[in-house]
């Protein structure tokens, strides 16, 4: 009975506690609650900071003393932020009783208050001059809400007030004579405005000079409170709010909420300004928590690009490289990453990048943006001369040639030099120059070097011209070893001028495989011929002929390394051997290299269907590898062997057929095997001589019969039969004893020699 009673008490206590917790009550029997406003439960944050909001309310006459935010980001629950909620104020209008408001009046005086939030009036202190005996709280229409006797100038209330509502607080004698007619006193003559509440008390009304009628002291306490706090979150957490009341009760919501994950930092790295044809890199560095799966695509100027993702722990970096296209004028372009966190889409911060234009123009030397300067000189006299240009083209770009711009320049007026500027001048530009220049009395030359990078530190070129009387046109035709014309061969002709190797002709061969230079036939020139896939050909000679044929050797196809050169592979068992089932063989692979330095070699044993039996390899330039393998009942064993040279693997394959010896116990071979073994045991006393005799009889009889029957008299024919019979008894069946042990199958060899000799004699006769 006692146990039952004790259990009942414990059970009821437990139920009570659980109820209190689950309903978030402010203590047992209190009427209040705490609500979590935002963020929602299981929240995934896409921003670095999260604003936590909650509110609390109490309606039992007590008031809220504080409201706290709690979370367990560091592992343990801590109070992160506490806000003490206070009543912000009451709007007070004095003198309900009209213009006669001397405090000596004993009755029918009061004030109007307007609540800006819910509150509780605990008591009212009246002016000592007031002789009224009772205080009343009414709605603005005169409906009474509560009243209380004034004792020692204090009327006790415990009345809750609604928010945003007007109330009249008046004093009177024992009978409340305030009726609806008091509404006629609106508007009241003295508007005190908002009276701030300090420590729950609204004072300052007691001013006998200004307010002769009634002086009241109000006490109001907060019954609602709210909290909003923005916090930088770096790990998943649970959070909640805890409210405390003045009677030492407290409350919390029915359940906690969770932050599953989010971004703790987002760093975007890029150049805020760039120029067309540049290659720009954009990086988004996201640090996230909660093990989020982050994916992103890069959106640049409305175009979507696949982004490169690099993850290291909680840090994910998305990188994109964009070639900046040409623009008509300076332009702002926006970009961002369209991300997803565990499938929840969110965009990164949108950024702007300014794209500037690049411009080349003809300018004067000394200009701060002059990149290239051309001077002209006579190749023989080395004196400076003037030159004109005919459709010179300078293709220029920063990083991306696909977005290059071209400056075409023609100047028929012969000038001392030509200088070219590029803006903006704080960048390095790649320029592909095609520069035809000439002068009166000088044939045109074309300066066509490979594209070169230039900085604003001016690069000076002295371009030489050769007078008509001093040079000849020399045409070079470039072919390969198959005598095929080679186009796009870069040809560079230089000669020493004043001790400096100077370019006097450059360019690339056309479709006909030719290029023509105007050269001085009195000097040795150095010619370089280069084409991708061919060895560089450098040749020095005096170009005194009008045409030369240049053969580039070793084209790409011929330069393929022969990685089988000098490689010797030895494989055992011999691949001509037929293996027998249910037998273990040692498979050997020996590699020797006399030319290449082999990095690795090895082999794998497989079945016909590709099933790998076993394999081995060795990081060595040579040696022997061995594997023992049982043939079991396989029909074929395949060996795939390989060797690696300079990272290139050379694979080869061989195989062995496996003879299945099943059912061979009934074969003719078995008969001869048994016969051999029995003869070894002196069957019927037959020794080697007996064997010779029997075989001789067989030989004699068969030859005699064949000769008698078919008239075989030819020595060649007879020796052929002898060879066949001897071969059968010696090699095929092993019945013929070998009198010369050093030479296997000697009888067969002897018969063969006799047969060949007779054949030779027959032929030569």
């Amino acid at each position, binding site marked *: 009975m006692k146990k039952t009673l004790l259990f009942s008490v414990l059970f009821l206590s437990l139920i009570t506690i659980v109820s209190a917790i689950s309903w978030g009550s402010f203590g047992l029997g209190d009427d209040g609650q705490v609500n979590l406003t935002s963020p929602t439960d299981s929240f995934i944050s896409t921003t670095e900071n999260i604003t936590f909001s909650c509110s609390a309310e109490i309606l039992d006459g007590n008031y809220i003393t504080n409201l706290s935010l709690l979370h367990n980001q560091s592992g343990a629950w801590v109070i992160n932020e506490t806000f003490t909620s206070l009543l912000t104020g009451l709007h007070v209008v004095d003198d309900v009783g009209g213009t006669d408001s001397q405090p000596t009046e004993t009755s029918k005086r009061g004030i109007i208050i307007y609540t800006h939030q819910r509150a509780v009036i605990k008591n009212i202190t009246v002016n000592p001059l007031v002789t009224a005996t009772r205080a009343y709280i009414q709605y603005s229409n005169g409906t009474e809400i509560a009243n209380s006797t004034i004792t020692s100038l204090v009327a006790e209330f415990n009345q809750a007030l609604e928010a945003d509502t007007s109330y009249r607080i008046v004093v009177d004698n024992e009978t409340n004579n305030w009726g609806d007619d008091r509404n006629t006193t609106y508007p009241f003559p003295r508007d005190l405005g908002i009276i701030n509440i300090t420590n729950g008390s609204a004072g300052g009304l007691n001013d006998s000079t200004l307010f002769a009628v009634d002086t009241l002291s109000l006490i109001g306490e907060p019954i609602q409170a709210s909290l909003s706090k923005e916090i930088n979150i770096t790990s998943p957490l649970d959070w909640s709010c805890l409210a405390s009341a003045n009677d030492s009760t407290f409350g919390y919501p029915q359940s906690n909420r969770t932050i599953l994950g989010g971004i703790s930092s987002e760093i975007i790295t890029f150049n805020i300004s760039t120029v067309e044809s540049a290659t720009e890199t954009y990086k988004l560095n996201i640090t996230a928590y909660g093990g989020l799966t982050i994916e992103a695509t890069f959106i640049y100027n409305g175009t979507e690009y696949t982004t490169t993702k690099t993850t290291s722990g909680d840090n994910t970096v998305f990188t994109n490289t964009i070639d900046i296209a040409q623009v008509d004028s300076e332009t702002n372009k926006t970009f961002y990453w369209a991300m997803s966190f565990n499938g929840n889409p969110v965009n990164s911060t949108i950024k702007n990048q300014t794209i500037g234009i690049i411009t080349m123009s003809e300018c004067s030397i000394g200009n701060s943006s002059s990149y290239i300067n051309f001077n002209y000189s006579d190749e023989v006299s080395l004196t400076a001369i003037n030159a004109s240009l005919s459709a010179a083209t300078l293709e220029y770009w920063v990083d991306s040639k696909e977005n290059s711009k071209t400056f075409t320049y023609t100047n028929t007026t012969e000038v001392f030099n030509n200088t070219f500027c590029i803006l903006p001048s704080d960048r390095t530009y790649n320029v592909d120059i095609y520069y035809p220049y000439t002068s009166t009395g000088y044939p045109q030359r074309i300066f066509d070097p490979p594209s070169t990078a230039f900085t604003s530190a001016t690069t000076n070129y002295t371009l030489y011209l050769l007078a008509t009387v001093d040079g000849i046109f020399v045409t070079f035709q470039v072919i390969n070893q198959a005598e095929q014309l080679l186009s796009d061969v870069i040809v560079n002709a230089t000669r020493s001028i004043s001790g400096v190797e100077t370019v006097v002709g450059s360019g690339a061969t056309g479709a006909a495989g030719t290029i023509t230079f105007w050269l001085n036939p009195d000097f040795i020139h150095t010619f370089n011929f280069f084409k991708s896939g061919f060895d560089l050909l450098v040749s020095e000679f005096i170009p005194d002929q009008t045409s030369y044929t240049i053969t580039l050797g070793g084209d790409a196809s011929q330069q393929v390394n022969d990685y089988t050169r000098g490689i010797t592979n030895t494989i055992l068992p011999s691949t001509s051997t037929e293996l027998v089932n249910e037998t273990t063989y040692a498979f050997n692979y020996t590699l020797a290299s006399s030319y290449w330095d082999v990095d690795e070699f090895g082999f794998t044993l497989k079945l016909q269907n590709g099933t790998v039996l076993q394999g081995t390899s060795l990081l060595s330039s040579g040696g022997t590898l061995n594997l023992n393998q049982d043939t079991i009942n396989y029909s074929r064993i395949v060996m795939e062997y390989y060797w690696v040279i300079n990272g290139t693997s050379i694979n080869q394959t061989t195989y062995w057929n496996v003879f299945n010896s099943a059912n061979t116990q*009934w074969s003719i071979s078995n008969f001869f095997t*048994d*016969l051999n073994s029995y003869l070894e*045991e002196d069957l019927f006393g037959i020794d080697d001589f007996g064997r010779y005799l029997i075989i001789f009889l067989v030989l004699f009889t068969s030859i005699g019969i064949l000769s008698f029957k078919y008239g075989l008299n030819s020595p060649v024919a007879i020796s052929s039969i002898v060879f066949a019979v001897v071969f059968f008894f010696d090699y095929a069946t092993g019945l013929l004893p070998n009198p010369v042990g050093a030479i296997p199958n000697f009888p067969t060899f002897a018969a063969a020699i006799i047969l060949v000799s007779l054949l030779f004699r027959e032929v030569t006769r």
Partner: protein
Amino acid sequence: MNKKAQSLGLTIMSVIFILIIGFTALNFLLPEVTDARNNLNCSSAATISDGTKLLCLVFDLTIPYYIWILLGVVIGSVAMRFVF
């Protein structure tokens, strides 16, 4: 279709029938030969008598002879129809 052609077709069918029956019967003969060799202990050349050895050799040739005879009959039958 003439008589010779009909006769050839019949011969081929007969030959196929003989082959099937012959090789089926071979499966009954194989274990008997094996049993005989095992019982004679033919694999122990040092312990059996010369007569037994000779008998073993005869058994060794039993199956080859059987197959030779079977193929001889079949090939001979077909060849005879083609030649004659």
